[in-house]
């Protein structure tokens, strides 16, 4: 190991430079040197030569590379900021260079499928909890790294990049990971909370995307704040039931990464998931929307996965199930809404 002892000089790795990855790299670069991994060669050159990302200037503290080995050798702490669809593949590319002393914190709000070899989701009648991996579970499965954490919370990348005040949650089973995350990210404008229920925090970030799509759809239909209030609170109940079934704890769902993120995403045109719902309600097809978006809306994949999971457990998740029909089976949003209005929710809150 050729690491420096002082935490001031520690080089931090950032894997993936999407909008959130870039925002995190900027924040980290305020205190520490950063090595960033990007897949596009032009981006690597742009960062190393012009110190900018897509034309926006960034700190000279950030250098970029396409070489996982170089990144792993120079950093003890890595932030994985890759969309869930590419997560497993990227982690596998890094795996040969990762050692037990590494710490990984990820910021991906999606799920990954873990199916028997050669099977795809459409082959599976039902899927159970073992077939679903959160991103931290992917890291544990694919690498020897054990000290793993996640970042979640209301962190719209555009607002973070402008330096507006915000907060996040670093969740890990290991206090040392939480402390490292706090030391690296905390600033006057950025508050960092700790949580030991990493699965609950990951699921909060993942499941809220379903509700965000629905919320965008309501807005796209031109419906008002009463409807949104209804959706958010019923959505919260659904999120908690699904989250518990997947092994998260209630406490995390009512925290910053749960309610906090849910409220933010359900109200923001900056959210990709919200935008998907909005444009659907405006009459665009899912295909057109996906083709014209520069980054992935994680919620779409999450809806598909959770719908299959719900069927296997015998639970009911009316919002998820209807959203699935809207997204993949051409159910009209208006009809889905009608169905939800008639659905017999009799008890307001029965989970506390």
């Amino acid at each position, binding site marked *: *190991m050729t*690491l420096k*002892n002082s935490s001031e000089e520690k080089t931090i790795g950032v894997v993936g430079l999407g909008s959130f990855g870039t925002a995190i790299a900027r924040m980290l670069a305020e205190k520490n040197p950063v090595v960033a991994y990007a897949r596009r060669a032009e981006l690597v050159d742009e960062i190393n030569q012009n110190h900018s990302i897509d034309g926006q200037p960034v700190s000279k503290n950030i250098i970029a590379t396409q070489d996982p080995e170089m990144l792993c050798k120079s950093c003890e702490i890595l932030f994985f900021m890759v969309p869930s669809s590419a997560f497993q593949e990227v982690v596998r590319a890094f795996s*040969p260079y990762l*050692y037990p*002393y590494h710490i990984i914190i990820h910021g991906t709000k999606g799920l990954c499928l873990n199916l028997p070899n050669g099977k795809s989701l459409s082959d599976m009648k039902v899927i159970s909890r073992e077939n679903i991996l959160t991103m931290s579970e992917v890291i544990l499965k694919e690498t*020897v790294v054990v000290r793993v954490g996640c970042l979640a919370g209301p962190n719209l990348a555009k607002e973070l990049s402008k330096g507006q005040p915000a907060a996040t949650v670093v969740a890990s089973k290991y*206090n040392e990971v939480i402390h490292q995350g706090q030391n690296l990210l905390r600033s006057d404008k950025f508050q960092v909370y700790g949580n030991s229920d990493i699965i609950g925090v990951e699921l909060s970030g993942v499941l809220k995307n379903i509700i965000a799509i629905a919320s965008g759809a309501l807005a796209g239909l031109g419906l008002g704040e009463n409807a949104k209030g209804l959706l958010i609170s019923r959505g919260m109940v659904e999120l908690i039931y699904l989250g518990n079934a997947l092994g998260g704890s209630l406490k995390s769902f009512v925290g910053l990464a749960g309610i906090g993120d849910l409220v933010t995403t359900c109200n923001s045109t900056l959210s990709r998931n919200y935008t998907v719902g909005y444009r659907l309600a405006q009459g665009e097809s899912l295909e057109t929307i996906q083709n014209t978006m520069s980054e992935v809306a994680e919620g779409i994949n999450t809806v598909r996965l959770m719908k299959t999971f719900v069927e296997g457990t015998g639970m009911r998740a009316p919002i998820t199930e209807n959203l699935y029909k809207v997204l993949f089976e051409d159910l009209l949003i208006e009809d889905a809404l009608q169905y939800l209005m008639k659905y017999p929710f009799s008890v307001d809150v029965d989970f506390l």
Partner: protein
Amino acid sequence: MSNLIFVIFVFNLKPEALTDDYIKHKYDPILPQKDEWPVVKLSKSRKEFVKSVAEASKKRILGLTGGNVAVLKEELETTLYREKLRIKQNPWAVDPDDDYEFWNNVKGSLLQLSADISTPKIEKKKKYIAILDEITMRYAEEIASNFKHTHYKFTRSIITSGFARLLNAARVKGVKRLFSNQYSLQDKIQIIGETEQLRDLASKGTIIMVPTHFSNLDSILIGWIISVLGLPPFIYGAGLNLFNIDIFAYFMNSLGAYKVDRRKKNLPYLETLKTYSSEAIQFGVHSLFFPGGTRSRSGKIESKLKLGLLSTAIEAQRANYQKGINDISGKVFIVPVTINYHFVLEAPSLIKEYLSITGQERYYAESDEFSTSYKISKFLFKFFTKGSDISVSVGKAMDVLGHYVDKDGNSMDKNGRIIETRDYFISNGEVNLDTQREEEYTNRLGNRIVEEFHIINRVFSSHLVAFTAFQMIKKQNKKLDLFNLLRLPEEDIVLVYEEFKKEVQRVLDQIFELKANNKIHVAPHLRRGIDEIISHGLDNVGMYHAKRPLVKNSEGNIITEDMSLLYFYHNRLDGYDLEKLF
């Protein structure tokens, strides 16, 4: 019966999957000179060792109380209260004569200290620490093993030769029976799995063997196995209740047992116990933990482990790295072991306890069916003369994070790349102590051990028939919960043989599929014809119980005489999702 054993033995000679194969083997001792045995070295310096344990645990407790006198005082008072309660309510023969007196003196000193207002704080603190010192010293002395090499040799020879006599007396016919060496204990108790790796690593690093625990006989059995494998004795924590019985106390002491008193749940005791284990591992003494903490009451393979002792393995490993011992001599290896029985003597009382605990949470006293030497001897005689086979599966060695290790003891990731266990204890470039991290590592190790238990577990015909029969009965009575199911009148339950056979075959097919995926092991007798397997299973399942869990009635159908016992033996195959077949 002797024919049957013969069949099994012959059968074993057929080539099969490697680890399922049992080849009778003679193992030379890995350390021929007893002076080289770590446990002998430890017993020679027993006095100093006990002292260092007491001192280290005192430091730990002071660390836990944060140097706060009020907290320390409270801990001491709680300890005193609980100890007095124990002496009054649950005294045991093995308790020292001066127990009452000692704790009375502690009481006196504590009273005097708290009434005293003239002594300055620093002086008072010193006095509280002095009391703690006495307590940890007493506990360390009480816990420490009394290993004596001469006793060990004697005990070992009793077990091997004495039992071999019994075995041959029962099996060999004619005058020669008393002198025959045709059968040895190794025919009776098969040892399979990674024995060579274990022997190899035991000569280089420190082994912690973690077996499943179903019967009080396990301690002796494992002791014998360790000796057959040519390993120096392991120390292990044995329930103090076992020392109540003279014959057991003798065996335990000579096999290197230290004492664990489950009545004592106070902080100083638990910390002293952990320190003892951790220091012994650092000393290089091989240890044996029953990670379930106690015998499995349900008959299930342990799924929730007691992590207290296990954490000492991780602690000792980190301490070795902190001392700069980075090579294999300071490495701690975890070796899971499963013991597979057709018959568990204590099954009736174990399952009864299990049901009363799960049925309604209530306190139950530690009871003992091995209460007299007579009962034990009777059991041992039955066991050795009648033949109910036992097999012991030795799993692959792992590091304290649960990674498999290669022949040189290097940890490997799942792709076979060598990694340093030391790196898991590094923060900012240095090995450091982080108790919260080690707690999580302990949980992780616990989960890995449970996984390995399920993989190396060896299915017997008796487990198969018990599992199938119970699941069939459960399916026929879908609406009943477990407790009502177990209360069904036994005379009403009949399984038609042909249907039973069909279901056994289905479960067996699934077991072989699991085996193909390396998720379980099977005994060679499961490769015979299905009728033969079933009759072997019926003959063996819980064979010495007054009420048999499964028997054939006069029409050739399957009936049970005791549902709870059937449930107990069925549970051995819990945790493989086999119940989904029904």
